[in-house]
Structures are given as C-alpha cells and as structure tokens.
C-alpha cells in the first residue's frame, strides 16, 4: 500500500498531471465511441497517456494505479501493433472507461489522503481477458497480408533449437527496461520485412515472466527460412538497445554507430525533482522521436540519477542525425530547461568526449542569433511519429500556479487599489493645486487599473472543462436509459473565475441528469409526440454585462404547473393557495429542498436532493437560478452568475453611522417617496405602489437592528431591489454613490452568527479605511 508521505509539490504536480490526462482520455474515448473507430492517433494517445500515468504513479509508489495503467498500456500496445476489430470497439470503450473510472476514483482518494483500493484483480482480469479475446479472435495480422503466424506450441521451440542456422538470439543492453516491448518491436519489424518467425518466449506483452526470460536467457527468434538470416542481421544491426546477437551461428557484438548525436540538457538551478523533469522531457521527446535514449536511463526513483542530471546534465541520445532538429525543438520548449548543447556521441567511449558542444542558453535568447540556428530546424512534415498536436504546443506555454498564490496576489492588488484611492483622495490634499501630483496620480490610477485587470484575468479559465465532463454523463445515461440524446455545447470558451467553474460543475451535473432522466421522454414517447427521436440538451455559456449566463436547456416534456403544485402540496411545501402561484413561482418550487417530481427513485435522480443543491451552490457564488419551461417543448435552467466574485460594482448607502454596500446588479431603481404613496396593510406592513405593482418596504435599520435618526419615509431613500425571484423596496438614509468594491470574507469567528441569513455576505474596505458590510438581497428579502 502506498503511504502518503510524499513531497507535497510533487504530489500536487502528479495529481494535476494525472487528472488532466484522465480527462483527456475521457475525451478521446468519447470521440472514438462516437465515430466507432479508434484512429491511429487516438490509440497512440491512449498508449502515451497510460504510459505517463504508469511512470509517474510508479514513481509516487501508487503501485495499484501503476499496475492498472500498465495493463491498459499493454492492451493498447497490442492494439497499436495489431489493430482492433470494429465489432470490438464498444467493448473496448467500455473497458477503458471502466479503467478510467477506477483510476479517477483512486486519484481522488490520493487527493483526499484516503487509503487506496488494493483490489485490482477484477479489473486486471477483465483487461487480460479482453486482450485474450482480441488475440484469440483476431490472429494478429502482420502488415503483409495473407501470412499467418505458425500457431504457438510448446513443442516447437525446443525442436527449433536443434537447428542453429535458423535461430537468432538477441541480448539487449543491460537495464534498458521493457525488454518485452523491445522484443515485440523487433519481432514486428521482422514481420514487416517479410520474415516469418516464432519467438521464445512466445507471449511477450504483458508478461513479467517474458521480461525475466529475455534478461536471463536472451530473446530467441526461430526463423522459418534460414535464408532470412541476412535480412535479420541487417535489421538487428540497426536496432536500438541491442548489446549483441547471434544469427546463423555467428555472434555479432554491436559497435555503436558513430554518427549519433547527444543533446546535453541542464535544468534550472534548484528547480528540484530533476529526475522527474528529465523523465517528463524524455516523454515529450518520445512523442516526436520514439527511438530516443537517455543517460541516465533509469530516472524514476533514482536519487543518483537526480544528482547526475544536476551535475552532468541529462543526455538525450539521438541515433538518427536527421531527427536532431525535432528533438531540439521539444527540448527548447521544455519546462525549466536552463541550457542545452549538442555534441557527438560515441557509445563505445567510456567517457563521452563532448566534441565541440554548442551551448544554447534558453533564458537569454529565445529564438534569435546562434540559438535559432542550432535549435530551430524546420519540423519535417514527414515525421513517422505522430506530429505534436496543436494542443500540446499551447500546453507548454502554460504554467500551473497554486490557487493560494493567486488569491494572495488578488488580495494584495485589491489593497493597492484601495490604498491608491486613499492616497489620491486624501483629505490633506484637498484645495491644493498640485499639477504634477495629479498627473502622476492619474498615471498611477491607470496602472493600478491595469494591474487589477490582469490579476483578475489570471484566475479566469474557460468553462469548457466543466462542460466537457457532461459528455460522459450523457453517454452513460443514454446507455442505461436507452435514450438517444445529443449534448450540444455553445460558448464553451467563455471565461470565468476559477471558483465559478469549480462550483458550477456539480449543479450542471444535476441538471443534465435531471434533463436526461425526467426531462427527455423515452424514444417511443418522443415519436408519438411528433418530436425527433433524438433528444437534445444544450449547454450554453455567455457573457452579458458583467454576468455570465449559463443555460441548460432540453427539448423534453417541460414542466407542468399543476403537477408541480400537486406535488408541492403533497409534500407540504406550499405557502399560499395553489391558485395564487404564478407559473414562474411554480417552477421555483422545484428548487425547494425535498422536492422531487419523480415518484420512484432511480439511480440517477429522484431523491429530491438535486435541485436545491443546485440552488445552494449557485447562490454560494453569488448567482441566481431561474427556470423557464414550455409544456411539451422543454425546459431551461438559467444560472446568472457575477463574472468575478472578488470585485463588484456596488451602491453605498448610509444607515445611521454605518455605510452599507448593495451590489448594483440587484438594484432596479432608487427614488424618493412621499407619504401618500405608502399603503399599509392590516398587519402594519408598509407597501409602496410603483407602476401599479405593490412592493413591501424593508427598513434596513429595522432589519439589521441599527440606530438611525432617519425613520421618516420622506426623508430617506427607497431602493427597489430584485433578487431570488422576489422584489422589495429597501429603505435607507441616503445614497452615497456607486463604487467598485473589493469583497472580503467576514472573519471566520463570525461564522457562528448566521450572518448570511441576515443578508450579510461579506465586507469591504472603503477609501478612508473604514469597513462597509455588503448586503446580499435575496436572503434579506426572505
């Protein structure tokens, strides 16, 4: 069992990387399932993903995760070489989805510091079985068609050993790792050039035993035809990592080719985890140039390697001179690479003599001067390895920063903005003619404004991550519920604050599930209702005036006011007589805790916890939920969320000695009012009539228990606010104007006071250093 006593930053990096890889895997699988085909690139990507997860998990000593990843990697290594039948695609998808889910669960456990699941036998077995089926049913067609491998039998290899001339014995370099895979590659290459042969051990992929056998006894290939020996000798002479081989009774010791080039890479001083960085770099290089070798070779879990990388640099050995440029391209883009140099590499020499190294410093000259001349060779379009996808290139320009640091930065910038206005509007400066000061102050204001914008944009990420996850849910539910629903994304590139993306993920999931489960009818019902059989769920995001609108819309059966009201009455959730409920209000019943329209509880929904969680989560980030529906045509849930949580436009109002802040987005209008406009109902509640609508009056000094001298309705000011589906007029002493304020959370000491229920969500520091409380209207109105 892996104990979680690992270096934190390492664990964070691991989690971040693995999570994004798994998400990528989900995307690939969904794509493959949709087209019902695994393209070569997709298979390669899955292989790469699993390879990386295997490597990094092993390094973190999450052995179970590594094992599962290894199994999947093996599976795909087989598929990569032999292809997969179309009929198997669905099973393959399901299997990999299952493995993916398992890995995700485990990673989540790692995140939460829980013990990992050590029972992976079931999954392993499934993968093995599948691999077995693949092999059994599709007798691995080698590229030259028409030839079939002689069926493996235990009797054959011993028989073959008698004939030395047909036997080839290959010994790999010591410690070159993955001997079985290397053996496979050789075997495949042989078949490619038309050599028919049987290998010992027969079963290569996926087998520790094979690795051991190859290491101890060498990899034996028995050729069908002794005449092929010449071809094989040529091939082996040009293969990598082979120490020696015997063919046709002769032993060849491989003298290394002298034309190999080596790239010596130094990482930034003190960047830490040099071995892991080298490993990552190696993986990146592998994508453009698979035949790369590295010194030190064993990077993972090897302190010595770290030291070597630090002191002597990390050597990448490229045997093919023509490809050095490709590899350099990757190295140049690599993270934390301080400098690199190319040199000639002579394998046989014990001490590699760096012949005329050309050091290139990345930090100083990006792509100019001699550096460009060495490093930037045009990328040949004819590279046999999959060209780096455009996504890759973008990724290397990103760095991941801890959210805490960003928060600290944001806070600091907020302070600077406030302090700036404190300085420039200092009372000491009033009535002074300060031409130069005003000039500089204006410049400062401009710069702080920009600083603020940029620091805000740092936290902005696109919502596509949260949206993309829904594909998986729709896919799973389509299968389970036998529905045919298509998910359409609109505006997924819209950028919002990171916290918002995190908080909308759950609500979106609930809504999509609801739509899938209750919203969209079964295929038969849809056809009967004259709708296309295929249902549609549209997820959209758009910016509108400082707010982001996120809509989940389906073309299902929509909401029925009567059903909603009956159900609510049954559960005792109605607060007034059913007839009084407007359609909008009836829809909002859905959001009440304990309300569920579906009688039976299904796996996906029906427990009635979904929608109120949606509402809570959205309100937590200062947003509102509204529901629209046309009976028979579908429904839409709309989230209105402020773009950022940290800085809001707000109106300052005075009540007694205190200054309160009301977010501008809930204010409809402000007005003075005369006594005759006030209506009083039997309970003494005061109402005001505006444009033939009656609004209750909430006196802030009463609601918040404050002292003020302004209690006469004609002296103060009324502010019409609308939030959370209801509206009211708020009475305050006077308006102090509109400002941008930086929202600060209240100290946690105050959390015992349920201030949120009283409509106080935070506070802000005003220009003069005093504190103003920020009111949240929707809870104040209720």
């Amino acid at each position, binding site marked *: 069992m892996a104990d979680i006593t690992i270096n934190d930053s390492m664990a964070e990096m691991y989690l971040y990387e693995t999570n994004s890889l798994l998400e990528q895997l989900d995307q690939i699988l969904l794509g493959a399932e949709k087209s019902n085909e695994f393209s070569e690139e997709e298979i390669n990507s899955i292989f790469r993903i699993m390879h990386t997860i295997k490597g990094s998990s092993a390094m973190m000593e999450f052995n179970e995760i590594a094992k599962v990843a290894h199994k999947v990697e093996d599976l795909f290594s087989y598929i990569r070489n032999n292809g997969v039948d179309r009929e198997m695609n669905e099973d393959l998808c399901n299997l990999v989805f299952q493995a993916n889910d398992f890995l995700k669960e485990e990673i989540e456990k790692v995140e939460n510091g829980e013990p990992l699941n050590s029972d992976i036998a079931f999954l392993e077995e499934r993968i093995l079985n599948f691999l077995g089926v693949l092999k059994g049913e599709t007798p691995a067609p080698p590229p030259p068609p028409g030839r079939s491998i002689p069926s493996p039998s235990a009797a054959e290899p011993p028989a073959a050993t008698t004939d030395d001339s047909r036997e080839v014995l290959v010994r790999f370099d010591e410690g070159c790792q993955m001997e079985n895979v290397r053996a496979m590659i050789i075997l495949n290459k042989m078949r490619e050039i038309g050599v028919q042969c049987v290998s010992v051990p027969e079963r290569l992929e996926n087998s520790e035993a094979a690795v051991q056998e190859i290491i101890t006894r060498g990899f034996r290939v028995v050729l069908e035809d002794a005449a092929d020996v010449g071809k094989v000798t040529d091939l082996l002479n040009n293969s990598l990592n082979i120490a020696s081989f015997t063919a046709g009774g002769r032993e060849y010791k491989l003298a290394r080719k002298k034309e190999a080039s080596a790239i010596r890479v130094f990482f930034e001083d003190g960047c830490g985890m040099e071995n892991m960085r080298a490993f990552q770099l190696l993986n990146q290089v592998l994508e453009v140039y698979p035949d790369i070798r590295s010194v030190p070779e064993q990077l993972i879990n090897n302190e010595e390697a770290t030291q070597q990388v630090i002191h002597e640099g990390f050597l990448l050995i490229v045997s093919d001179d023509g490809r050095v440029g490709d590899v350099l391209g990757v190295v140049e883009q690599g993270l934390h690479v301080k400098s690199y140099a190319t040199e000639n590499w002579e394998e046989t020499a014990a001490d590699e003599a760096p012949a005329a190294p050309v050091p290139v410093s990345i930090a100083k000259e990006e792509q100019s001067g001699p550096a460009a001349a060495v490093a930037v060779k045009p990328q040949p379009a004819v590279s046999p390895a999959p060209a780096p996808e455009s996504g890759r290139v973008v990724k290397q320009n990103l760095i991941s920063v801890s959210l805490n640091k960003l928060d600290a930065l944001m806070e600091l910038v907020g302070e600077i903005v406030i302090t700036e206005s404190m300085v420039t509007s200092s009372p000491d400066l009033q009535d002074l003619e300060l031409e130069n000061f005003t000039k500089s102050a204006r410049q400062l204001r401009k710069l702080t404004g920009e600083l603020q914008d940029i620091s805000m944009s740092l936290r902005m990420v696109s919502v596509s991550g949260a949206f993309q996850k829904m594909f998986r849910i729709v896919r799973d539910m389509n299968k389970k519920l036998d529905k045919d629903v298509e998910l359409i994304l609109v505006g997924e590139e819209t950028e919002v604050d990171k916290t918002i993306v995190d908080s909308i993920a759950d609500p979106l999931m609930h809504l999509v599930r609801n739509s899938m489960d209750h919203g969209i009818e079964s295929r038969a019902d849809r056809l009967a209702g004259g709708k296309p059989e295929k249902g549609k769920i549209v997820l959209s995001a758009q910016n509108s005036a400082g707010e982001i609108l996120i809509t989940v819309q389906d073309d299902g059966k929509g909401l029925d006011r009567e059903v909603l009201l009956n159900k609510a009455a049954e559960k005792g959730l109605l607060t007034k007589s059913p007839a009084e409920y407007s359609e909008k209000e009836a829809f909002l019943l859905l959001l009440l805790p304990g309300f569920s329209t579906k009688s039976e509880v299904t796996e996906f929904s029906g427990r009635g916890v979904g929608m109120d969680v949606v509402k809570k989560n959205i309100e937590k980030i200062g947003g509102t939920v509204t529901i629209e529906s046309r009976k028979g045509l579908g429904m839409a849930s709309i989230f209105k969320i402020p773009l950022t949580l940290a800085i809001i436009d707000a109106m300052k109002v005075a009540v007694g000695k205190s200054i309160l802040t009301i977010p501008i987005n809930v204010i409809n209008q402000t007005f003075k009012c005369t006594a005759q406009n006030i209506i009083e109902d039997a309970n003494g509640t005061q109402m005001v009539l505006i444009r033939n609508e009656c609004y209750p009056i909430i006196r802030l000094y009463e609601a918040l228990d404050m002292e003020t001298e302004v209690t006469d309705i004609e002296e103060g000011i009324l502010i019409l606010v609308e939030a959370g589906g209801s509206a009211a007029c708020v009475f305050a002493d006077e308006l102090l104007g509109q400002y941008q304020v930086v929202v600060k959370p209240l100290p946690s000491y105050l959390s015992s006071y349920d201030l949120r229920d009283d409509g*106080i969500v935070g506070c802000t*520091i005003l220009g003069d250093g005093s504190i103003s409380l920020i009111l949240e209207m929707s809870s104040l109105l209720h």
Partner: protein
Amino acid sequence: MDWLQQAELQEQETVVALNQYLTFAIDEQSFGISISDVVEIISLCPIAQVPQFSGYAKGIINLRGRIIPVVDVRLRFHMPEKPYDSRTCIIITNINELDIGFIVDEVQEVVDIDQGDVEPAPRLTGSYAHRFIIGVGKRLGKMILLLDSQRLLNEEEVAALDVSQM
C-alpha cells in the same frame, strides 16, 4: 557562537516566553494574557458595527487590510460599559490561528511571572470575570488575574472556530 548553543538559547527564550504576560487594566484590576497569544497592540480605531452580534462583540476593524473582529473585554466580563478614551487599546491576538481583537481600558506592561508565583484560580466567586481565569499571578505584592485566552471566546465559539478551520 556555536549553532548548538544558539539553538539552546532559543529554546530557553521560548520557555521564558511561556512565563511572560501582557497585563492590562480594567477598573484598576490587572489582568494578564499570555504573550505568545498576542500579535500587537493598537490604539482604538473606528469599529464597524455588525448587526446580530452578541453584545460583547463590538464589530470588525480594518487592520491594514485584514478584517478582524473585536470583543469588548468589559462586556465579555459582564462589567458595565465605559466610554472609550485615549487610553483605550485593542490587543490583537492570534488564538487557534484566528485573529481577534480585545478592547481593554489600558495596556500596562509585559511581566515575567514564574510558575511558582502562580496560584490556581480561586473557586468561582461572584464575579463573572473569574470564569476566564486560569490562575492568579503575584508580582510585587499585586495580584494579576491570568486569563485563558481560549475561554475568552466561549465554548461554542471555540467549537465553531474548530469547524471553520477544518
């Protein structure tokens, strides 16, 4: 100086700090609060009222951009309120990783009180303030009531604090 000696010396210093108390006065009576809880002492600054606060919590203050709740120690001890004057101070403390300010009549000094000079707290007398006392320190013939800073936030608050810190 040898680093080992230095480390030892530092250790001694922390031990010393355990015996150091910041004393403040309320109605001529001296109270002591462990210096290790104290962050700084500031003069009275504008306090923003927060509705629904219990009476002794006066509100929140802005300490260089940090929002810190303040508690009036007089009210916490169920003593009559007294108008603030120029000697009124706020002692900013950090208890369980939580910043909180205590408004006191007057800050006196930092004193060393040996453990031997600390008597256990007397049994509850009539005064509400004694609920917060963990011991009585004697110094130069004067009594200093030593406060348990944990108890200044009441049990419920301490519990709430634990939850919010999770």
